[in-house]
């Protein structure tokens, strides 16, 4: 494996405006104008790490620790408050699969739309179309409108599109439980192959087993800061110990 850097995160900070009164009308704008004391929450405070090409890194942490925010920043959905994110190559986020599907269009039309959003040209989609459909196991349903799909079918198609776009970096957010057991197994196999070919993976998981099985390194995030970086065997026991003691405190 080469030692090129695929993802470089330097001094990353992200604040969100906390508002109990949703900004959604001009009235709130005017009120907001009067008292500009806006409550901000720091979701990420000064995060820095590097991921080498071909590495699989797991991000661990409790709910609200800032994992999803971090992944969204890597997927270029948010802009950082401070610091920078540098990603070499194409990112394919496997977050909430099929979120971008239009219910009135057929599965086939949605495949085109989503694959182009993820960076393919229409010609490339045409070439890969059969493979995408085959992987999703949707068969003739691909010609039916997506509103007639079950949630499992949507997830399968979403996954199938996302892995066929030649991504260099995959962002996987707890989606390994797609569809039935067999399909989940197929997805895992595909992710293993992707890694074997030198693809970079960022994985969010609470499953110690899947972290151990996939990840070369683990990053533990707590309260928006990096608590620990190391091999899964170093990080997982420490993480477990921490959450157990937290549970103890809670009781």
């Amino acid at each position: 494996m080469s030692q090129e850097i695929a993802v470089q995160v330097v001094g990353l900070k992200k604040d969100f405006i906390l508002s109990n009164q949703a900004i959604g009308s001009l009235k709130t704008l005017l009120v907001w104008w009067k008292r500009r004391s806006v409550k901000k929450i720091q979701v990420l405070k000064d995060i820095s790490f590097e991921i080498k090409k071909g590495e699989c890194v797991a991000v661990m942490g409790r709910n609200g620790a800032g994992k999803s925010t971090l992944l969204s920043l890597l997927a270029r959905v948010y802009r950082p408050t401070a610091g920078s994110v540098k990603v070499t190559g194409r990112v394919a986020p496997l977050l909430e699969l099929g979120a971008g599907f239009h219910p009135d269009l057929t599965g086939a039309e949605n495949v085109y739309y989503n694959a182009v959003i993820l960076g393919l040209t229409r010609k490339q989609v045409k070439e890969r179309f059969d493979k995408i459909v085959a992987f999703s196991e949707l068969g003739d349903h691909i010609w039916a409108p997506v509103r007639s799909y079950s949630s499992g079918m949507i997830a399968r198609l979403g996954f199938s599109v996302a892995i066929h776009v030649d991504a260099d970096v995959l962002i996987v957010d707890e989606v390994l439980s797609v569809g039935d057991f067999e399909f989940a197994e197929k997805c895992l196999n595909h992710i293993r192959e992707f890694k074997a070919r030198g693809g970079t993976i960022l994985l969010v998981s609470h499953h110690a087993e899947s972290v151990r099985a996939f990840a070369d390194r683990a990053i533990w995030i707590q309260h928006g800061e990096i608590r620990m970086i190391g091999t899964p065997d170093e990080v997982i026991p420490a993480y477990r110990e921490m959450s157990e003691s937290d549970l103890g405190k809670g009781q």
Partner: protein
Amino acid sequence: MSLKNKVHVGASNDGEPAHAQQFASPAAPPSQLTLSVESPGMIEELQELWRFRELLLTMVHRELRVRYKNSFLGILWSFVSPLVTTVVMWLVFSVFMNNGIHNYSAYYLAAFLPFAFLQQSTLDASQSVLSALPIVKKVYFPRELLPLSVVISNFIHLLLGFVVLFAYLLVVYIRFPGSFPIQPTVIYLPLLLIITLTFATGMALLSCALNTFYEDVKYLVTVGMYLMLFCCPIMYFVEMVANSKINREPYFWVYKLYNLNPFAALCIAFRKTILAPTPVLGRDGIRYAAIPLDWNYVLAAGLISVATLVLGYSTFNRLKWRFVERP
């Protein structure tokens, strides 16, 4: 039948060397994306937009598909609406009101089509980011593609509308041969269309950026556009404004102000470049002579359009990263 075959073949290949090849193929040059706090300038934003031109085309295509997805006539609806308008306008203005203008429908459509385009694309664009919010929250692409695709698909409808207008004029000419109804100045039509498109794009970006935060904007736009319909010479003629009582000497400022409104200026320009000048029946049965098109007002509309586009684009770029953080 054939599909099942394909699926089978695909499935047997799945995950084998074919895939490995796929990932190795230099389909996309490895791009380096850096995301930092500094906002890129307008030139960089435009380059980024150009990189995503393929997605823009796909979105326009999708926009056109979705609009008539569940309807029987499909894209034919784009022709139906101007056709029905033609008939109703003929009935109302030429028969009921008998305003003495031969083929009033053509005059109506020539001004109404560009206005309807401006109205519809501004309204549709205002909702474009909000309705795509689920995907906007997951994947990166230049957000301005959403309002832009709405504008372009509406522009295609505008062009189809003009096809109906010209077909109607030809039919009228064949039935009542006389002077040819289409003026030679129709060659300026592309220029007018470009100005209208520029203006619509600016308005769309502006209303989209603002409406994503303050949903009042779309109601303001709805009401504003409805009132604007009456402030443009669509259901009447600009000659009536010029000869109205409040348009007085020495400055005739009412007429000048009226023409500085880019909506009105564009309606006037479309009507006067396409169709023959027609005297208008005014107050007390006086006929007002047709006023020739003043290109200075078209120039003003063009400048306002460019200014609107620059304002809209910079506003959009300033706000677009906060769309997803909208609480």
